[in-house]
C-alpha cells in the first residue's frame, strides 16, 4: 500500500509540506515536481467527484473511471489524497488546520474564490505568516481580465504563441497537448521555490501569482520582441526545422551553413554544394519550393531512425518525429531509465514517464497516484480528529 513501504520525503525537499488545493494540470504538475523531490504533498479533492483530471482522457482501456485516467495517474505520483468540501464552513475550518501544517499551499480557483472561503492570502498570512500561497489562474489574480474564463487554447492565444504557430495561409494552430497548463505548472514550481528561498531568510511567506497567459507570453518570447525591435509582427512561418515525410514517419532538418556540404553529399547530390540557388541561408529561403521538392523526393526513400542517427554521426542536428512508441523504444531513454513502472490497485502495472529531475542519488517517482481520499484516515487522525468525529464529517459530506 502507498505510504507504508515508502519512506516519504526521501529526497532534496524532505521535510517540505505542501497542501495542494488545485486541480487539473498546472497546479498538480507543480506539486508533482515538488513531490518527486521528496516533499510531502497532500492533494485535496472534492468529495465524490475528485480532481477534474480524474474525468479527463486518456483512460485505461477507454473506461472513464476516476482511478483510470492517465492524466491524473501521471500528474499525481508520490502524493497523498484526502477529500474535503471547501464550500462548507466545516470544510474551511479543516482547510485552515491544513494551511497551518503546510509550508506551501497551491490553488487554482477563480481569483476571488478563496476570499469567499476566508482562506485568501490575507487570511493565511494572519493564520500562518510563514506559509507561502501559490495561485495559478488563466490571467493572474489582478488586472482587467482576471475574472475571464480561460482554457489551454485561450491562454495560448492571449500569450501570443497561437498566432505564430501554423501555416501562414491557414488559421493559427495550437501546440499539441496542454502546453499552456504545463508551462504554468513549471512557473508555479519555480515561483514557489523562489518564495521558499526568501522565506528561509526572512521567516515570511508571500503570495505567488502565476498567470498561464503570462507563462505562455514569456515562453514564446519572439512575437513581442520582434515587434519591439523591428516594428513588425512575426509571421506564422515554420522554417526552423522543416519536416519531411520519410518511409515510416517524419524527419526534421536544420539547414546550418556548416552542414550544407555534408547534407548535399548525404543526399548524393554533391552538385548542389556550390549551387547558387541553395548555398546560403538567404538563397535557400528564396528557392525553398525547389529545394523542398528535391529534399522531399530523397527523404521519401529514407527510414527515420537510421537517417537521424546517420545525420547526427556527421554532426547534423536532425530530429525525427517521435510518437509515444518511439519514445518508449528510444535507446537513449532506455539507457537513462527515463520510464518507470508503477503498480496501481485499480489500473495495474503501467509504464510512466519518469522525472526529468536527475538528482545525484535520487531520481524517480517511487509511488503511484493515490486513490480518491485514500489518505483520509491517516491525515484526519494526525489533525486530531477521532474516528467518531470522522464518521460525522463523512456523514455530513464534509470529507
Amino acid at each position, binding site marked *: 500500500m502507498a505510504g507504508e513501504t515508502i519512506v516519504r520525503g526521501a529526497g532534496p525537499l524532505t521535510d517540505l509540506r505542501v497542501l495542494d488545493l488545485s486541480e487539473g494540470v498546472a497546479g498538480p504538475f507543480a506539486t508533482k515536481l515538488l513531490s518527486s523531490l521528496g516533499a510531502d504533498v497532500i492533494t485535496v479533492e472534492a468529495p465524490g467527484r475528485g480532481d477534474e483530471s480524474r474525468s479527463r482522457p486518456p483512460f485505461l482501456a477507454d473506461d472513464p473511471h476516476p482511478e483510470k485516467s492517465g492524466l491524473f495517474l501521471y500528474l499525481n505520483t508520490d502524493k497523498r489524497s484526502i477529500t474535503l468540501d471547501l464550500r462548507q464552513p466545516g470544510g474551511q475550518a479543516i482547510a485552515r488546520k491544513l494551511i497551518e501544517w503546510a509550508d506551501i499551499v497551491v490553488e487554482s480557483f477563480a481569483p476571488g474564490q478563496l476570499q469567499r472561503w476566508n482562506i485568501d492570502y490575507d487570511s493565511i498570512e494572519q493564520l500562518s505568516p510563514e506559509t507561502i500561497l501559490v495561485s495559478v489562474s488563466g490571467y493572474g489574480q489582478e488586472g482587467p481580465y482576471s475574472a475571464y474564463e480561460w482554457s489551454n487554447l*485561450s491562454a495560448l492565444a492571449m500569450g501570443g504563441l497561437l498566432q505564430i504557430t501554423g501555416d501562414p495561409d491557414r488559421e493559427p494552430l495550437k501546440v499539441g497537448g496542454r502546453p499552456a497548463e504545463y508551462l504554468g505548472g513549471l512557473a*508555479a514550481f519555480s515561483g514557489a521555490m523562489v518564495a521558499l528561498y526568501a522565506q528561509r531568510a526572512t521567516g515570511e511567506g508571500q503570495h505567488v501569482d502565476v498567470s498561464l497567459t503570462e507563462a505562455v507570453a514569456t515562453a514564446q518570447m519572439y512575437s513581442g520582441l*520582434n515587434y*519591439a525591435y523591428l516594428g513588425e509582427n512575426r509571421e506564422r512561418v515554420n522554417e526552423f526545422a522543416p519536416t519531411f515525410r520519410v518511409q515510416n514517419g517524419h524527419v526534421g532538418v536544420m539547414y546550418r551553413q556548416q552542414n550544407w556540404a555534408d547534407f548535399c553529399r548525404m543526399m548524393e547530390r554533391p552538385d548542389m554544394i556550390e549551387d547558387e540557388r541553395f548555398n546560403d541561408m538567404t538563397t535557400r529561403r528564396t528557392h525553398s519550393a525547389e529545394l523542398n521538392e528535391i529534399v522531399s523526393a530523397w527523404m521519401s526513400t529514407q527510414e527515420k531512425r537510421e537517417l537521424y542517427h546517420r545525420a547526427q554521426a556527421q554532426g547534423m542536428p536532425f530530429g525525427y518525429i517521435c510518437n509515444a512508441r518511439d519514445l518508449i523504444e528510444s535507446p537513449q531513454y532506455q539507457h537513462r531509465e527515463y520510464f518507470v513502472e508503477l503498480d496501481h490497485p485499480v489500473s495495474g502495472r503501467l509504464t510512466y*514517464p519518469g522525472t526529468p529531475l536527475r538528482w545525484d542519488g535520487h531520481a524517480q517517482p517511487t509511488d503511484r497516484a493515490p486513490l480518491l481520499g485514500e489518505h483520509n484516515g491517516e491525515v484526519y487522525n494526525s489533525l486530531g480528529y477521532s474516528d467518531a468525529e470522522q464518521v460525522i464529517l463523512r456523514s455530513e459530506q464534509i470529507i
Partner: protein
Amino acid sequence: MATMALEGLRILDATQVWAGPTCTKILGDMGAEVIKIESARRMDIPRGDIDPRLGAGIFPDGEPGEEPWNRSGLYNDRNRSKLSACLDLTHPKGVATFKLLAAKSDVVIESFRSGVMERFGLTYADLKQVRNDIIMVSLSSQGGTGPERAYGSFGATLEQTAGIASITGYLGGDPTTSGTFLPDPMVSFLSVGVVLAAIEQRRRTGEGVYIDLSQREVTTSMVGEMVMDYTMNERTGIPTGNRDAVHAPQGVYPCAGDDSWIAITVRSDAEWSSFADLIGITDDAQREQFTGVIERHNHHGELDQLIADWTRPRDAFDVMKILQRAGIAAGVSLRGDQLLQDPHLAERGFWENVEHPQAGTHPHLSRPFKLSKQPGSTRMHAPLLGQHTEQVLREIAGLSAAEISELKELGVTSNDPTAV
C-alpha cells in the same frame, strides 16, 4: 523584508543561447548575483556574429551598428541582470580563473554540449575540489549519459524528438513544430526551481549536488498523458488541429481585419446553450442537431462553419468581450504589437522598459511568476561583452592588478571578437 528574494545567492553562469541564460536572467531579476562567463572567440549565439548577416541577432530597427554583439534584442532580453566576464576556457589560465570564481559561487550552471566541461577540466568532481558544497547544474540536449549524449539539437528538433510535435498539426495533416522553440523556455522555467531546490537541500544537509537535466526528457514530461495513452491503450497520438479531446466546439475562428483570429472553447451543454443563442443558432432542428457534446463532436466541421460565419464580420476583441460576458473561454490570438499594447498585461506591469547604452530603450518580458512582497525586476541592462571582466576578477576572484593585466596580455580575457 529584504528587497530582493534571492539576495545573497551567487551564480556562476556558463550557459549559452536560451534555456540557461533565461533561467539565470530570472534568478538575477529576483536578486541573485549572476556572473556570465563569455568568450569573445565563440560568442553566445544570440549576440549575433561579427558579420551580423550570418548571425541570429534581432537588432533595433534591423540596424546591427558598429558592435552588433552588444545590440541584439535576443541576447539583451535573456541576459539582463547579469555581470559579463570574458574568459577563454580553452586556455589553462582561463580554467584556473573559472575555478577561483566557482570557489566563491553557490551554483555553477552550464549548457555546453555534453563532454565539453570535461575537456576544460571543469567537471563536478573538479569543481568540488575548489568548493566542497558546490551545486552544479548541466543543461544539455539529451543528458550527460547514454548513446545520444553528444547529439546536437535545437529547440525545434527537440520538439520532434521529445514527442510534442507528433501531436501538433492541423487535423488530418502532417505533424509540425511550434512557432517558437518551446523546449528552451520549458527548461529555463524548470531550472530556476531546480537550482533553488538544490540550495534548499544544501541548507538542510550542508552538501552540494550535481544535476543532469536533459532538455529532451524535460519536454517529454510536458506530454505525460500522451505517453500514458500509449502505455495504457497502445495508442499513438496524431495531430488534432485546434480541437479538444472532450470539449466541443473548440477552435480558432476568423475575425474582421487582416490575420485576426479568436480562440473559443465551449466547455459544457449550459455554455453551449448560451453560445448558440449568441451566434444565432435558434432554429429548433439545428439546436437539436448540436444538443449534446457527442453531437457537437460528430458535427464539428459543420459547427466550425456556422461559428466562422458569425465571427468573420466582427472585431476579435468585441467577440471576446461578448463571449466572456456569457462565461465562455474566448481569447484573441494576439499578435506581437497587440501583446505589447494589451491593457491587461500593461496594468500588471508585464513589460519592463529596459534602457541599453548601445541598443536604446525597448520593452522586455518580465517573469512567469509574481511574488507579492519581493516581485523582482530588471536590475540592469544586459551587459556589453566583457563589461565586468575586471570588476569580477578583482572583487570576486580576488586577483591583483598585475594578475589581471597578465590575463589580458595573454588574450584570456579578450572582449574583442574582431581580434581573435
